[in-house]
């Protein structure tokens, strides 16, 4: 069996385990390539259906194309789409682009807090109503107990410590020092009231695997990943003010795969274009403990 097929089959297994074990399950969709591959794998696992809601945290600063792409696929694939947002921080302009917060503070407010409160149901959730073709405030405020996310272990130091099923305690904290063992395809599917579990089907995938899979399955990704004449493209997507494109003329999936295989990018961190990572060496670890992906 070739490597991509093996990765695909193992991830599908994990998604199905998640679906059968968690009554209140959702999947985080950042619009980026990883979580889009994850979404595609869900359609594989459930034969064209996605039987749980997708959660997107809209910071209000996303590159507009990302939102267009999100809503296009929502309609085409009949997705149960929910977004959450820190409306208050945006109204009060407590953000980095407004000059009132550092990168990290801004991330904390617009992503961490928004995510935590959207998952818990404390803040409004905006759910796409397909009949009315618009987002409406969701009446369901039940907290999600299983949260699927597209984390990869080659991406960032702290992430290589993850489990496929990673418990978060009542305070949403991640106890890295004392994680449960995980073996023989058996995962942590039992959990105490008030706690929840993060599920990571993509842990074993590398950046190259992701692109090869996008190529072999012909998965539609947002065009920001490709050079459209400027000699630059995004390697990792985030908020417009804080994400820089890289120099690259790869203009389609084939060229991106070829570029990755030259190893030209292999010694530059994938998220090097993401400003918040630079601010303090291991900022992500802190954000992750807080629940930000």
């Amino acid at each position, binding site marked *: *069996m*070739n*490597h991509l*097929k*093996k990765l695909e*089959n*193992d991830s*599908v*297994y994990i998604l*199905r*385990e998640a*679906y*059968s074990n968690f009554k209140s399950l959702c999947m985080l969709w950042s619009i980026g390539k990883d979580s889009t591959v994850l979404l595609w794998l869900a*359609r*594989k*696992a*459930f*034969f*064209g*259906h996605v*039987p749980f809601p997708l959660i997107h945290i809209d910071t209000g600063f996303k590159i507009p194309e990302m939102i267009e792409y999100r809503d296009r696929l929502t309609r085409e694939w*009949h997705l149960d789409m929910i977004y959450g947002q820190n409306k208050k921080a945006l109204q009060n302009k407590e953000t980095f682009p407004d000059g009132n917060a550092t990168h990290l503070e801004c991330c904390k407010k617009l992503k961490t807090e928004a995510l935590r409160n959207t998952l818990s149901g404390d803040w409004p959730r905006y759910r796409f109503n397909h009949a009315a073709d618009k987002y409406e405030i969701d009446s369901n405020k039940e907290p999600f107990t299983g949260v699927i996310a597209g984390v990869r*272990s*080659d991406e960032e*130091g*702290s992430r*290589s*410590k993850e*489990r496929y099923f990673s418990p978060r305690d009542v305070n949403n904290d991640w106890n*890295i*020092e*004392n*994680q*449960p*063992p*995980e*073996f*023989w*395809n*058996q995962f*942590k599917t*039992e*959990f*105490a009231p008030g706690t929840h579990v993060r599920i990571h089907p993509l842990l*074993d995938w*590398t950046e190259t695997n992701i692109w090869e899979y996008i190529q072999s*399955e012909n998965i539609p990704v947002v065009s920001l990943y490709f050079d459209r004449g400027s000699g630059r493209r995004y390697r990792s997507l985030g908020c417009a003010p804080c994400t820089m494109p890289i120099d690259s003329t790869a203009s389609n999936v084939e060229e991106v795969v070829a570029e990755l*295989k030259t190893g030209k990018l292999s*010694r530059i961190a994938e998220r090097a274009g993401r400003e918040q990572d630079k601010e303090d*060496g*291991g900022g992500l*670890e802190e954000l992750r403990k807080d629940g930000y992906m």
Partner: protein
Amino acid sequence: MTGRENRDMKIAIVGHVDHGKSTIIGRMLADTDSLPEGKLKRVRENCRRTSRPFEYAFLLDALKDEQSQGITIDSARIFFSTDKRQYTILDAPGHIEFLKNMVTGASNADAALLVIDADEGIKENSKRHGYLLSMLGIKQIAVIINKMDLVDYSRDVFNSIETDYREFLSDINIETDIFIPVSGLKGDNIVAPSPNMKWFDGMTVIDVLDSLDASLPETDKALRIPVQDVYKFTRDGDNRRIIAGKIETGIINVSDTLMFMPSGKKSTVKTIEYFNGDKGKIDRAGNSTGFTLTEQIYVKRGDIACRIDQDMPEISRRIKANIFWLDREPLEMEREYIIKLGTQKIPFTVESIEKVIDASDLSFTSKDRVERHDVAECILTLKKELAYDIIDNNQMTGRFVIVNNYEISGGGIIPEVISDRQSWVRDKVITRNEKWIISDITKKSRAGRYNQKASIVFISGEKGSGRKLTARNLEKMLFSQGKLVYYMGMGNVLYGVDADIKEQGIVKDKKEHLRRLGEIAYLMMDAGMIIIITALDLTSDEIELVQTVTESDNIFTVWMGDDITTDIEPDIRIPSADSKDSVEKIEGLLIEKGVIFDYN
């Protein structure tokens, strides 16, 4: 990338703390040119600045966590490649929780490197880790004797450690011929052959890795698909009822006849389902598949799909298991835990602990509990039938994990079959199910029509406690509510159905009597009925037997009288003083359990 294998290989690295795992990994990364540019130099400089001696462990720490968090604490993945293929090293550096992390990493590995310090020799964990690798089912193991520079690259030292450790490995049924003398620090025999050990003519660590085989899913074994779920997504008019699961071993084809274990229900594969891409009539081990059946039988998560033309798994409520325990809280008798095997999840208690093995020296003791890091042979009693294979026949369905307080706390393998009190009944039940003719009217539609769930109500108690009167009154009351109900008096069974096993009004073979009673009840339940049965001094064993025959959890027990004289734990107790309300009490139970309901 031509000529390279299109699959990565996962390698676990284990060994006693400080024997040199990190150093060897660091060396492999450095000498295969797999490090980010300038990384090695920066870490060396950093050491010089802080006047610490350079350690490869620092390099790994720096790689895994850009921040200096001090100790690395979890099984981490490190990627590197040779000309032949890509590797993922599953590393779990030394720490108190090491074993949890080691098991997590090593269980996924295709092969393992076990590191022993030549100067310090074999230590407890050199053996304990070897033992765990064997339990985890890792077949390919290379033993690396490290720090040869500290023993003057001595052939004698190497030979003597090799001899001792080889003996230990053969005691635990691991066979390996791969022993490599290395110095991680100086780089001998890691990537390049060592000029310091001309006496050694074996392969270097890297060459050994390249010579190992990636473990492949076993298509030549009997089919085993632990059912993950049955999907019916009705959106857009999709009316497929898809049984989903990963093919652990074997091959499935359209028109194969399958049997679902432990229930023994049977049906034929109609289609294999796909999304985007493949449209085939066959699927094989390693794949997460989905298929539909020609006859709609009741299949659920936990069942194992098997082919009737191949070996069937074992089924039992009692298993022998070799368990390794990872939890701080010991495994104790008389407490309830959960076993997870495939997608089955069943509560159990430890019936006995045969012996507890100290994995570091293979000595054993008898204890009444299994402590953290112990390995033990135990007998487990399960609440329901488990379908499994013995480990030598099938690794995937011969091993399980144990859940205690929401956490995976240990793992185990099943080395052999032991007898179980119900096995004689179960064989008959499986044959019955095999031949059973399935009605077009489903259980669900019958339940909907009658507003009731087919069930058995056992009314038991001591002599003279009013069992029979209660049974009659209950029958009348349910009937007047429009329920389909039948009180099956013992006399109705004894002289006809049991004619051949009865002498002078007494049943010779009580178990066979109960089996037959169960079969009659099963028929009536298939017809959707509520059956009331009275029984003197009913025991939990007898209830279990009826459960096995009827394959039903909808069996409820009522105990009448002041004292419970057997070992049963009835759903309700009705003391003599309350017996006039007994019918209402039972009605309450049936409503609470969802046996009777009314939509209107």
